[in-house]
């Protein structure tokens, strides 16, 4: 009989008899510490969804979408941050790389990476979203059955650290006629965007760090421009030049690719900020419900102009809405996680979320969004995403 095993009410299994299942890995020495860690091997399928529209002729024009449906919380692990490369990811030598500030400045300057380390640094968590995110929902006549990685994956959220742009611009001395800054990246096509000087000076960051470590190659190593809330491609990666001008240069990307054609045929040249938007990630398309009962509906909400103020969730196709919990801290121009308990009775239904931001803006329904634009427009799509739940528990992309 085992020692005091009968004392008190504590059920202690008999050691000798019941051994339970002893997995192999508790009987051997484990692996030693390592310099840099990686996800578990079993998580290898958790990858970005690679999108190469012209794979045969132009594979370097390539995108990859964050698998939002496989992630929780709000931070995007840097290995899964979305990519949009207009000419591929360059191999920038950080020792040779320079940041130039020139044009309408008193003192044209250049900085190397080491010098920039001496500068004051700010830290802020911000999302980045490609202006073309969710484009399949914007333009496809029938809803694509794909996951959040493919449909909405050009969206990520990181803690960025770097030098306030204003400190660097002040050192160069912006002249009174300097109203715009043409930011140029050090990639093959030397991607360039014109940015109002007000934004640069207000909260622009020369981002050197992403989630604590040096910024990743895909996100602009060794440095990128960060313009909190602005459409992704204005946050120029591999930033090498800030050219102060009196007017926008009307670069390639602000002449065509990133201009929205409206319903009347006219176009919006500059759409700076990302509109208020939300997305249920759990459950979402390509998932299958595991039977009726309790689920937590969970998703992400964001706005390029401020904080998320409120997220409503509907589990009946929009007939009724209830406020979801916003997970603290709710930060401006950052992804906000929302959650809502839900009992699924097993019958078909439609799940939706709609976000409000602190300017009072509300996420539109798809027909309202479509009504504003020419049918070809695929930019700044921020309409409500309805997910259809079938009786079999399949979760499907659907338009309402």
């Amino acid at each position: 009989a085992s020692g005091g095993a009968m004392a008190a009410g504590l059920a202690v299994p008999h050691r000798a008899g019941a051994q339970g299942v002893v997995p192999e890995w508790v009987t051997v020495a484990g692996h030693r510490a390592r310099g840099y860690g990686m996800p578990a091997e079993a998580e290898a399928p958790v990858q970005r969804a690679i999108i190469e529209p012209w794979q045969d002729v132009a594979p370097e024009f390539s995108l990859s979408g964050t698998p939002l449906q496989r992630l929780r919380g709000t931070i995007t692990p840097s290995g899964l941050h979305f990519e949009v490369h207009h000419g591929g990811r360059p191999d920038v030598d950080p020792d040779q790389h320079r940041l130039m500030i020139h044009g309408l400045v008193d003192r044209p300057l250049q900085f190397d990476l080491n010098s920039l380390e001496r500068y004051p640094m700010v830290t802020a968590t911000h999302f980045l979203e490609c202006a073309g995110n969710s484009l399949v929902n914007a333009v496809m006549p029938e809803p694509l059955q794909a996951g959040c990685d493919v449909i909405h994956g050009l969206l990520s959220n990181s803690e960025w650290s770097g030098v306030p742009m204003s400190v660097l611009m002040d050192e160069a001395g912006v002249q009174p006629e300097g109203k715009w800054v043409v930011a140029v990246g050090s990639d093959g096509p030397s991607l360039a965007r014109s940015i109002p000087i007000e934004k640069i000076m207000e909260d622009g960051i020369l981002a050197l760090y992403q989630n604590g470590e040096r910024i990743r190659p895909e996100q602009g190593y060794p440095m990128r421009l960060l313009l909190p809330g602005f459409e992704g491609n204005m946050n120029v990666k591999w930033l090498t030049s800030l050219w102060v001008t009196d007017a926008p240069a009307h670069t390639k990307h602000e002449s065509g690719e990133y201009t929205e054609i409206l319903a009347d045929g006219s176009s919006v040249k500059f759409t700076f900020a990302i509109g208020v938007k939300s997305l249920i990630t759990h459950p979402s398309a390509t998932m299958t419900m595991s039977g009726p009962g309790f689920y937590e509906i969970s998703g992400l909400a964001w706005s390029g102009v401020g904080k998320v103020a409120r997220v409503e969730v509907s589990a009946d196709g929009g007939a009724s809405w209830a406020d979801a919990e916003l997970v603290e801290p709710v930060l401006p121009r950052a992804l906000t996680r929302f959650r809502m308990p839900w009992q699924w009775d097993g019958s078909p239904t439609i799940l939706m979320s709609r976000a409000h931001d602190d300017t009072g803006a509300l996420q539109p329904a798809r027909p309202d969004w479509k009504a504003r634009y020419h049918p070809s427009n695929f930019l700044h799509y921020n309409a409500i995403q309805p997910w259809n739940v079938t009786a079999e528990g399949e979760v499907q992309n659907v338009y309402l």
Partner: protein
Amino acid sequence: EGPDLGQPLTSDEIPFYATYVMPDGRGLPEGSGTPAEGAEIFAAQCTECHGITGTEGPVMPPVGPNEIWAKPAGSYWPYATTLFDYIRRAMPLDHPKSLSNDQAYALAAFILERNGVIDADTAMTAETLPMVEMPNRDNFVDVWATQGAKPW
């Protein structure tokens, strides 16, 4: 505010792609190119991605109208200067910055001509390119006028 570690930058240290040709032509270099010259270069270096006549693609055909791309560069873009600069810095995608200024003028000329924006006998130069009247230019919303001083 900071350590003042910026080093002086002289104009001969600034590579051409660190600036951008402005719509009024500031920044355009010497050189010239005709649509016919451009046609030859296009046939040799651009058709693989943009199609034999510049309308087939598969990549964003710069000549319109076409079946693929609602915003063909040669007719949709507001300023012709952008064509020169973008081609010069970025195209062909797999050999960016390999074109001469003359070639970039010629390719801009070719694309503009194919879009019916300029005549076949007009050469593009630092003087003529900024003068090209792009047909869609006045069809853009002024977001400052509609949304105020900070339209974001």
